Structure formats: structure tokens, C-alpha cells
């Protein structure tokens, strides 16, 4: 059913493109549609010819109940300018998943967080986004989790993402102490995004997924 909707949307968009109609694009940007089917993640209603950040955390439970977590960080371009981007994975998206899509041109976002799996959007377990207090001090993300998959998206620029572990090499104090502080400029650029800046820009979109509980934090830089 979902696949079919993607196909119909694609045909519809192709017809619009062939008619040369640009009027639809002048209106409010339509809401992104995130469609997951099998091993394919599609995003509809994206800016034609634009780029979409795709961030996914999949918890695959195998036949022996052993869990494997796959993290996807990609920027996908709408090469055929049909308003639909598609990403094929090397695994089927499992029932417990978190997927985020952000249109880099408009900042429009879409989220997949299946409610039937008991997954939730939660608050930071710490101070969350923190502005540098002193001159030359960069902005940070602070949380009391042991591990989080973090994504920062700056519409118009790109995205940065990493796995942050309490006491890991991105944790500012490098020590396991019940939480982490990660300067945002150490996060890795996604695809060809330039290196991260020291400070958040207003309305940067920030997401964090706990790869164990599969809960999601959604935040926006003030």
C-alpha cells in the first residue's frame, strides 16, 4: 500500500514536471511524507532537485533474539527532480526503527517512530543543547545517557552526525561519569557537508536516538 503511494506520487510529480507548471512550488512547502517499505525508505514532497537528510536507526532482532542496530546517515539528492527521493538499504527496516527526513532546502521534516512498538519521543536526560558561556567556548550537547546517535541539521547548509558514548572519544571529559558533553564542532559531517561550526545556528534541528531503548529526542536550537 505504501509502495503504491510512492509510485503514484512519483507519477503525479512527473506529470507536473512535464507540464512545466511551477505554480505548485510557489505555495507553502508541502509536508514531507516518509514512506518505509521493506528495505526501501522514500521521502515524498521534497524540494525538486533538492537534498534530503536521511537518518535512520534500525534495531533488527534476528532469529535467536540477538539485536543488531544499523545506523544510516545519508544526504540523498532528488536527481530526477520528481519530488521523491529513495534510499535502498542492505536490510529490511524492522518494526523497531527511528527514521528522520529533513528537506535541506526548506527545513521541512518527517519522522517515523512506530507507536505499536512502545517507542516514545522523550526529553533530554540532561541539559540538552547548551550555548557556550564564555568567549571562545563552543556550544555543546549534554545528556546523561550512556550512548546516543545524534544528528544536527542546518537547513540550507547540511548535517552532522555521530555516535556519542559517555567516556568515548567525543565526550568532552573523556571519562565515563554518568553522562556526556559533546562539543558540536566535533560531530562528523554527513556526505559533503562542510565541517561543523562551534555554535548552533538558530533553528538548527537536533535529533538524538538511544540505540538501546529506541527512544527519540527532537529539539531545535534557540
Amino acid at each position: 500500500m505504501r509502495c503504491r503511494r510512492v509510485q503514484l506520487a512519483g507519477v503525479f510529480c512527473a506529470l507536473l514536471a512535464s507540464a512545466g507548471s511551477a505554480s505548485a512550488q510557489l505555495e507553502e512547502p508541502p509536508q514531507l511524507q516518509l514512506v518505509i517499505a521493506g528495505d526501501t525508505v522514500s521521502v515524498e514532497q521534497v524540494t525538486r532537485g533538492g537534498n534530503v537528510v536521511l537518518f535512520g536507526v534500525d534495531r533488527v532482532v534476528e532469529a535467536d533474539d540477538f539485536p543488531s542496530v544499523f545506523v544510516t546517515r545519508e544526504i540523498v539528492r532528488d536527481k530526477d527532480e520528481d519530488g521523491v527521493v529513495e534510499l535502498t538499504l542492505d536490510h529490511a527496516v524492522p518494526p523497531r526503527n527511528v527514521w528522520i527526513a529533513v528537506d535541506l532546502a526548506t527545513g521541512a521534516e518527517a519522522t517515523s517512530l512506530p507507536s505499536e512498538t512502545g517507542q516514545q519521543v522523550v526529553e533530554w536526560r540532561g541539559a540538552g543543547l547548551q550555548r557556550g558561556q564564555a568567549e571562545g567556548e563552543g556550544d555543546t550537547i549534554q545528556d546523561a545517557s550512556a550512548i546516543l546517535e545524534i544528528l544536527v541539521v542546518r537547513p540550507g547548509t547540511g548535517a552532522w552526525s555521530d555516535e556519542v558514548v559517555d567516556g568515548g572519544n567525543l565526550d568532552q571529559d573523556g571519562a565515563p561519569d554518568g553522562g556526556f558533553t559533546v562539543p558540536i564542532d566535533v560531530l562528523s559531517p554527513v556526505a559533503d557537508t562542510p565541517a561543523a561550526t562551534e555554535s548552533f545556528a538558530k533553528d538548527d534541528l537536533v535529533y538524538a536516538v538511544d540505540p538501546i531503548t529506541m527512544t527519540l529526542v527532537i529539539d531545535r536550537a534557540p
Partner: protein
Amino acid sequence: MRRVGMRYQEVALRALLIALFLALAAGPLSAQEHLNVARGFGRYAQQGLGIDTVNSFNGNLTLAIPLGPTYPVGPELSFQLMLLYNSQVWELQNLGSGVFAYPSRTDNAGVGWRVSLGQLVAPNSSGDVDNTQWVYIGADGARHHFYNTLHAGEQPAPNFFYTRDGSYLRLNATLRKVAFPNGIEHIFDANGRLHRMEDPHGHYVEINYSTDAAGDVTEWQISDSHNRHHYVRYQSSGSSFPRWVVKEVELEAVATATHSKYTFSFENQFQVPCSGQGTALWLPFLTGISQPDQTSFAMPLSDYYLEPPPANPATTACRSGRLARLTLPTGGKLEWDYRVYTFPAASTSRLPWRRSTGVARRSLVSPGPPPTQGPTWLYNTSLAYLDTELLNTVTEPSGTQTRKYFGVATQVSPPDERSYEYGLPLTRRVGDGTGTR
């Protein structure tokens, strides 16, 4: 010394009765997670010693500490809260190219410890359990998977599921109701928490829960058809594993209006899990249980193995985070040391599951002064007969040795009945006396 021994025997007897109660309440207890690392008593492999039980197959240590008396509710229905310990304390998951390890997510009273009356988990529905089938987690932590028929090849009935591990549980998935062989039914809420136990005669025990904003349980309120009320209260753990731990258990006394309290104490500690990537986690450890009669069980941090994982876990047991010692209310102690239990490489594709950290030594220590090492039990395992059998030789304090064999054949070609004997307590190498078999 003799008096201490007597008290210990009393505790042992209580624990044995509790184990029997659990067996009656929940059916035969067996695990259906991978047997190499399964928690719980173990259906075929347990060696009950008193308050503690050793699974002779994988060496898992289980402790059962009663929290209050058994409350009879009906002819077949009764309940008792228990504090259970499993030495299989770590869970694993693949993450990227490595393995991330953390404490068992179903433990709610510190690393390895759990207070529970059972849990029902729908497929892919829980942040605490990874499962693609319905799973019942018994009070002892053992997991029982449900199938759509009792036996393969039977006609399935919609919404009914059955265990196939000898526990003979039947699940009505629509009502989230699990029926036990003795006629008792357990009904679970949408979050898999036990909501009600009832018998066919109208007797019941009901459990309601308070939660925080994130949905984590902060209190149980237990009531029964005799209008008794009990409470299990939590406190923030200061850790992610888990976020809340049991703080106290308040029980209504039998035939009086007074309540009795069991109070738990904790200390947090950084500990590196076994089989992970070396990431230290900030974890709550249970350090004591204060009982209503002012006596206590004690297991301060120094009574846990807080060493880092060994460089070569294939040859040296990873004891990280496991219980080393428990001081009984009498002042006597139980001590355990661990060894590597090795399983055939073909038993699982998961490298860390090809071995288990299991009990190597169990000792009793008298309180003294000075404390004196008492009787000791030794466990020595090996693979035998081309890795088709696991042998655990148990040496008792008297010097008596018991050899316990388990089938572990994994690659039988052509397949025969040995393919289904993994973990069963048997050997094909001992004749039946007739000389023919």
C-alpha cells in the same frame, strides 16, 4: 557456629520452598533464550543448594531471597514477592562494527537483581526485551516463547499461543491473559506488566502501577480479594541501566494492621561490561536488604567482582559485575567464584555466546571471629566426545563427585534425534546394562 548453621538451614529451607512455589505458580521453569547464556533456574540443569541454585549446564547462579511470607489467596492462588539474582548480568547488541554491552534491561534492583511477578512482552513491543514472538518472562527471569500451536503441524487457533518448553502456558493474546497448568490465569496490561492473577473461584491479586512522565514504573500497588494491600516503591537510580530501582517493599502483615518494610540500599559504580567494546557504564549495585526484623542481607560493593574484563575471555572468566559474596542475616557468608563454560563453536554464530561465565566454586564461610572457610563445592566443565557432550563434574564437600552430562551435538549428519537434544541432561556414552544399548 552450629547455631549459624541451623539458621542457614532455615534460610535454605525457605528458599527451597520458594523455588517450589515458583515452580508451582509458573509451571516448570526453563529458559528459552540461548541455553548457553540463559538466565533462570534452568529446567533440567539446576542444582539447588539452598538460597542459591547453580545451573549445571551454563553455570548461571540464581539466588532467591523471599520478601515477606507467602500470602494465600485461594485454594491454588497465592503470591510471594521475591528478590531474584542471576549471574548472567550482561546483554549484548551489535552496533556498527562492534558489540555494545549493558546490564540486563529487565533487572530492576541493581545489576543482576530483580523483583518481579512476571512480564508478558508482545512481539517488538518493549524497550527492555528483544523478541519477535510473544514472550513470558517468569519471576526468575527465564524467558518462555509462545508459538501459535502447542505442537508443530497442529491447526492454529487465532489469538491463542502456547509455550513448547514444558511449561505448558497458554496465551490469549487478545486479552493478554496467560493460563498456567494449575488453572491460575495472569492478565497483563498493554505495557506487559502483570495486572491481575485470578483463579476460577473469584479469588484474585491485582497490581496497579504509578509511572513517571517517561512511562517508567515508580510504584506498584498490590491488593487482593482479602483486601490486603502491599507496595513496591522505586527510587531514581542515577543511571540509565535502569533509571529506577526498587527502594522498598511494604507488606501488610498477616492478621494485624501493621506493615513490614524491606529496604534496599544501592551504591553506584563504574563498571566495564563483559564482551563489549570496553565502555565503562555508571551502574547501580544492590548493597543491602534491610528486613523488618532489623536483620539484613549484605553485599557491599566489595562483594562484587569489580575487575575489568580479562584480555582473553576465552580462557579467563569475565567476572565483571558479578556477585562474589553474600552475607546472610546470620552473619555467615556464601561465596562464589567463576570459570569459563565453553560450548561448541557451532552452537551459535554469536562469538560471545560460545562461552558462559559460570560458577566454579561455591563456599560457605562461618561468621567467626575469625571468619572460617567452610564447605566448598567445585564445578569443572569440559566438552567431551568430539564436542557432542558437555560434562560438568561437581565435587561436593565430602569429596563425592557427580558427573553431569548434557547433549550439545550441533552438527549431526544426517540429522537424527541428537539434533534436538541440545542442553538436555543425557549421555549416549553410558550403557544401559544390557550390553546392547
